[in-house]
């Protein structure tokens, strides 16, 4: 099977893939002079109590003659602020604290440094853009506001529609510049949305922007899961009359059925090396067990053999274990098995008699799951040995389907706390919970794509 490199691209619904010219062709990115000193790491994001850098992102300046009818000046600044705020590493200083005339400076000589120190900003991002017909050119610069020093800048050129992606890309650059690690601001989330009696797959940016529809099967389609390089999406669909497992190539949007055994073919999870998919099959007797499927050869290996229901596998990032849900102790709890010798150990013990939907962090340090406590589902987090229990959501509706970002720092989940089931994102410690989907239609089962290849 062809596993093509991702050129994931906004798809206009029902009219197929827009020609994938790729970001590089249409976005011209010119690197300005960076500081001659080697990039200093300002923030150690692995430090236990990382402090946040106060940063201000004033509205962008419009240098062109075409009017900014779409209010891109404030919108682009907001996108970057939201990205940096969500990262947990920055504290956003509201530009409204300063008179607008103090925030027009774009270059080092123009910026009013004294004003910035009055509001406690230690960093600043400035932007200047011009629009002509449906194209936009943007320059963005990052400064150290304590030393009044230019750190780095980029210039982008693209269509007006690409302004969100341009902002996310620059936020990634800021993140990388200050932490040494890549940011997740250009990633996306695929999910299920109920449409009438059916469920279809959709795709949006990690912050909910650029919504696209992926399937029109007029059927029940569930449990999407990205491959590690985000080039493929595995999912279950009833489109052929049975819950079968499919793969979608994200570039071409072509789908292929890869498992259609009798019974269920559900809950796919890709192995970290991309060669296998763990899934649940019930075959002839309706007794759900965990299997792994070799994506190339399609051969199956059985992982569990037990009279109880075993379902919802999730791989450890080193590929040696699978956590899963089993009712073998009477009600659904999280267990883990060693892939080589199939030995099973129990992970969740106390706190609740219905624990399910485990998701193993790509960093290996935590497993999150949805557990019933006091009649509601909440997201909980534990170490893989079951210790250091923490509850991440509380007091608000039912919170389910947790899924990790590929850097293991953020979690997406579904919640009906507003009265309708929507998607949310949060940091791994439960802070920063933010609704990212809106509008009609209940949403479920989010899966977070990995970083795009550059």
């Amino acid at each position, binding site marked *: 099977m062809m596993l093509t490199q991702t050129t994931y691209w906004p798809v206009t619904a029902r009219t197929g893939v827009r020609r994938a010219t790729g970001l590089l062709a249409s976005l011209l990115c010119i690197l300005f002079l960076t500081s001659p000193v080697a990039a200093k790491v300002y923030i150690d994001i692995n430090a236990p109590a990382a402090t946040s850098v106060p940063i201000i992102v004033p509205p962008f300046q419009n240098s062109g003659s075409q009017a900014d009818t779409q209010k891109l000046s404030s919108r682009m600044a907001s996108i970057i602020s939201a990205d940096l705020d969500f990262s947990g590493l920055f504290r956003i200083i509201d530009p409204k604290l300063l008179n607008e005339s103090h925030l027009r400076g774009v270059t080092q000589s123009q910026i009013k440094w004294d004003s910035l120190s009055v509001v406690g900003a230690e960093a600043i991002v400035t932007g200047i853009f011009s629009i002509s017909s449906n194209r936009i050119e943007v320059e963005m610069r990052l400064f150290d506001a304590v030393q009044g020093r230019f750190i780095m800048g980029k210039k982008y050129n693209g269509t007006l529609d690409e302004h969100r992606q341009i902002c996310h890309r620059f936020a990634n650059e800021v993140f990388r510049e200050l932490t040494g690690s890549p940011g997740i601001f250009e990633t996306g989330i695929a999910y299920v949305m109920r449409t009438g009696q059916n469920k279809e797959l959709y795709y949006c940016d990690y912050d909910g922007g650029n919504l696209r529809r992926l399937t029109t099967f007029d059927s029940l389609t569930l449990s999407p899961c990205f491959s590690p390089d985000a080039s493929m999406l595995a999912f279950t669909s009833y489109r052929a009359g049975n819950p079968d497992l499919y793969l979608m190539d994200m570039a071409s949007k072509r789908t292929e059925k890869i498992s*259609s055994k*009798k019974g269920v073919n559900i809950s796919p999870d890709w192995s970290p090396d991309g060669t296998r998919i763990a899934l649940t099959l019930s075959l002839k007797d309706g007794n759900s067990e965990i299997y792994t499927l070799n994506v190339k050869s399609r051969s199956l290996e059985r992982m569990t053999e037990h*009279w109880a229901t075993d*379902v919802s596998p999730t791989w450890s990032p080193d590929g040696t274990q699978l956590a899963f*849900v089993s*009712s073998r102790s009477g009600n659904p709890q999280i267990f883990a098995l060693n892939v080589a010798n199939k030995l099973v150990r129990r992970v969740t013990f106390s706190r609740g008699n219905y624990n399910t939907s485990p998701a193993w962090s790509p960093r290996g340090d935590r497993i999150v799951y949805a557990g019933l406590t006091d009649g509601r589902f909440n997201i909980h987090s534990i170490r893989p040995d079951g210790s250091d229990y923490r509850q991440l959501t509380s007091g608000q509706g039912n919170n389910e389907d947790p899924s990790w970002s590929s850097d293991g720092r953020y979690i997406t989940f579904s919640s009906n706390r507003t009265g309708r089931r929507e998607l949310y994102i949060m940091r791994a410690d439960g802070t920063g919970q933010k609704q990212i989907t809106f509008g009609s239609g209940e949403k479920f089962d989010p899966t977070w794509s990995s970083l795009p290849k550059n």
Partner: protein
Amino acid sequence: MQRTAKTLMVCIFIAALASSMACSKKQTAPNVATGTPELEEADLGAGDFKAIDPNDPVLSAIFKNIPFNYDQFSLTPQACAILDNVAEWMKSNTAKMVLIEGHCDERGTNEYNLALGDRRANSAKTYLMQLGVDAARIYTISYGEERPLAVGSTEAAWAKNRRGEFKLK
């Protein structure tokens, strides 16, 4: 420690077997995995099966939805009574095939409920087989919590949604 754990496991196993054999009729536990995994491809064609016509007095009296208890796939006496009638009819109408759909209420996660719905459908199938209905005439499918009958988060709605539903062709 190990021995008590083992004893506990055995007790739970026996309890589970016992609860799955709630009906007075003789039946083996439908939830024990047997032999090597059968890797048959799904041959369902669930689209061909038709819902029971509510205006047909005979069929709608026989093919009532079978109820299930919360998080259970064992057959209650009420379920067995319905299945007894279904088996009788199937044995008199040998050209017909039946599809049993397993459904769950909205509580719990979708994936676990898909698995539970599958077990419910298979419980019913095994029971029919033991009453002499040919396995080749019985199809099963799970819809988990995806196709509720009743809307709402009440005990009444949940009870209606925990069901085995029949279709014929």
